[in-house]
């Protein structure tokens, strides 16, 4: 151990106990009246009021759910779509720790943090949607294992994957707290956590699609096939990476001062690399979609309203961004890559909602449309997540370089 590292640790904790340090860190840093705060705070407060109402008067008091459409925006968007976007974490850890592509190492921490928070908050949103949440421990503590249920599998995987991600992220927390011994132990667990996490992700990304396998007669045939799990898995790859590109560009602006010089330089090259991977994954996905379509023999359905909608999704939100990703990768056009990632993100939202909400009971007499209160609660969850994210970024060495004792010790 050398002198400089000692000094850094001294400075971070400065003679305080860890708890004192954490308490101090809880205080807000940065300006209070930013546009983001001014918009988000009222919505968060409103959301909390709505959540209280929901627990007193029942789910129906603030949602438009019906007996025919029991899962709406909170499942279809918050959980199913949100988890697809959180897929970036397993893809990036796969590239860095399994394929040893060190180029992407600098974005691992922030991606894992994003993924972890997404799971925590979306699983939290799931609790809001449970009518009898006090029984949520039943499938976990084992007095009622519904092992033939896809949802059982997904629930368990959420839980385990959150732990795996926490372990993956924990060295950064140790760096923040200046805990050297813990840092060493936790770093040693990274590879195991990554391998476990990727396995879990493969299964629950596809599992989210498998949830709908039994709803065969209820989902529009253009979106239902026995291959939904495969589709969900493959699309989670580029969904996650597009989110990494998009979110990374925003972080890059907002937290510019926190980002180390080295990472600033690497940023464009990373985005370009991801763009190539997105194009590849989207090509595979597009090809699979065509296979499934041809296999399903749904030609006549194309000439209907839902058919045009299907074509819009496939051409406008899969084929188009796929071509854009490839083209801008070749031309090294970073702006175009960002545009492609936004189109892809929209496409994923459309796709997941088509399976879970829009195409679900498409033939029913009355359609489900989320109430403004469901949307407000969704935004509330999203904003709280961003707040926590910002809190962490401002304090822990996520985007910035780790304290010098970490690198020196190696």
């Amino acid at each position, binding site marked *: 151990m050398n002198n400089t590292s000692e000094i850094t640790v001294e400075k971070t904790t400065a003679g305080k106990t860890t708890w004192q340090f954490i308490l101090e860190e809880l205080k807000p840093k940065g300006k209070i009246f930013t546009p983001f705060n001014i918009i988000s705070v009222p919505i968060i407060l409103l959301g909390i009021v709505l959540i209280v109402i929901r627990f007193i008067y029942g789910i129906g008091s603030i949602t438009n759910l019906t007996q025919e459409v029991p899962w709406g925006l909170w499942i279809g968007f918050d959980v199913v779509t949100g988890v697809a976007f959180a897929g970036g974490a397993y893809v990036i850890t796969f590239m860095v720790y399994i394929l040893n592509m060190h180029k992407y190492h600098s974005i691992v921490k922030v991606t894992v943090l994003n993924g972890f928070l997404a799971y925590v908050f979306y699983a939290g949103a799931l609790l809001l949607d449970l009518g009898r949440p006090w029984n949520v421990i039943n*499938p976990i503590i084992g007095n009622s294992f519904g092992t033939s249920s896809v949802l059982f599998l997904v629930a368990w995987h959420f839980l385990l994957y959150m732990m795996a991600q926490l372990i993956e992220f924990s060295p950064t927390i140790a760096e923040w707290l200046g805990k050297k011994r813990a840092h060493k132990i936790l770093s040693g667990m990274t590879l195991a956590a990554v391998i476990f996490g990727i*396995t879990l992700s493969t299964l629950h990304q596809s599992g989210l699609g498998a949830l709908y396998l039994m709803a065969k007669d209820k989902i529009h045939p253009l979106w239902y096939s*026995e291959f939904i799990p495969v589709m969900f898995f493959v699309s989670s790859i580029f969904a996650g990476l597009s989110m990494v590109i998009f979110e990374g560009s925003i972080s890059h602006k907002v937290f510019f001062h926190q980002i180390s010089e080295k990472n600033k330089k690497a940023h464009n090259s990373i985005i370009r690399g991801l763009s190539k991977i997105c194009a590849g994954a989207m090509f595979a996905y597009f090809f699979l979609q065509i296979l499934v379509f041809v296999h399903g023999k749904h030609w006549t359905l194309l000439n209907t309203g839902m058919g045009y909608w299907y074509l819009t999704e496939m051409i406008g939100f899969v084929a188009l961004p796929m071509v854009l990703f490839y083209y801008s990768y070749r031309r090294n056009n970073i702006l175009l890559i960002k545009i492609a990632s936004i189109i892809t993100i929209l496409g994923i939202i459309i796709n997941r909602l088509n399976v879970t909400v829009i195409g679900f009971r498409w033939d029913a007499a009355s359609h489900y449309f989320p109430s403004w209160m469901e949307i407000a609660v969704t935004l509330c969850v999203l904003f709280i997540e961003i707040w926590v994210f910002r809190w962490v970024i401002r304090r822990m060495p996520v985007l910035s370089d780790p304290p010098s004792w970490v690198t020196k010790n190696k």
Partner: protein
Amino acid sequence: MKIERRNFLRILGVTGVSLALNKPLNAKPETAEDVEFYGILYDATRCVGCQSCEYACAESNGLPEPTGMPEVGIVRKTDETRRTIVNAYDTSKGEVYLKRQCMHCNQPACDAACLTQAMHKTEEGPVIWRGDKCMGCRYCMVSCPFDVPKFEYHSANPKIIKCDMCHDRLLEGQKPACVENCPAEALIFGKRRDLIAEARKRIVENPDMYVDHIYGEHEAGGTSFLYLSPVPFEELGLNTKVQKSSYPALSKGFLYSVPTIFVLWPTLLLGIHEATKNNHPINPEENE
């Protein structure tokens, strides 16, 4: 360290296997023929649309008194206040009544969907809901091909509402309330196998009176509630697009692949990790 990791992964793999295999090992018998489920046979040619079953059901289950009556052109639906409903249909053979309720599938989608085993196919045949287990996720509603389970959206302690074939009464040796109170003998209760034999007999003895189809014999892999009708079932608003094999089978393929992935993936990932480790010179600036 490496060995520890491998062991760790192996244990995880095994856990994954047991989690996923648990059910298939002690799963219910695959075909309806091996089990003696009880069931109900409803004969639409005998039903007079008197709603006695609706009233008996409401009384027996502490639900509000039924409102409305069977009327052609109006499709009443079961909901959180009524577990069964009788509707009238204008058909090619005049006005025909049809009772609706849970089908008590032999291999119910709701039971397979339920992650807490709150929805449960009993040995006797009825599919019941158990409030002490249910977490209100409504996945049973998403999965049921007949849209049977209903949810109390306006309650802070919501229940899933559906016909349970009066399971409690059966255990006491009584018949379901609807069967007991049907004045026209449109409903009969018995062993499913006997009911199918009886239904066949009626079709054979009166071929002009019935369509040659027992709805529920094969629908959704077979159900404990069986229908006889004078007209094709689509005229009575029953879901005739329902598949003939069981619904839980649709997600079996996925569930069976879980243990395989749980064993293969970690091994594969570790292998790739080892193989690529030396391809890229490790940048001394990176940690790990």
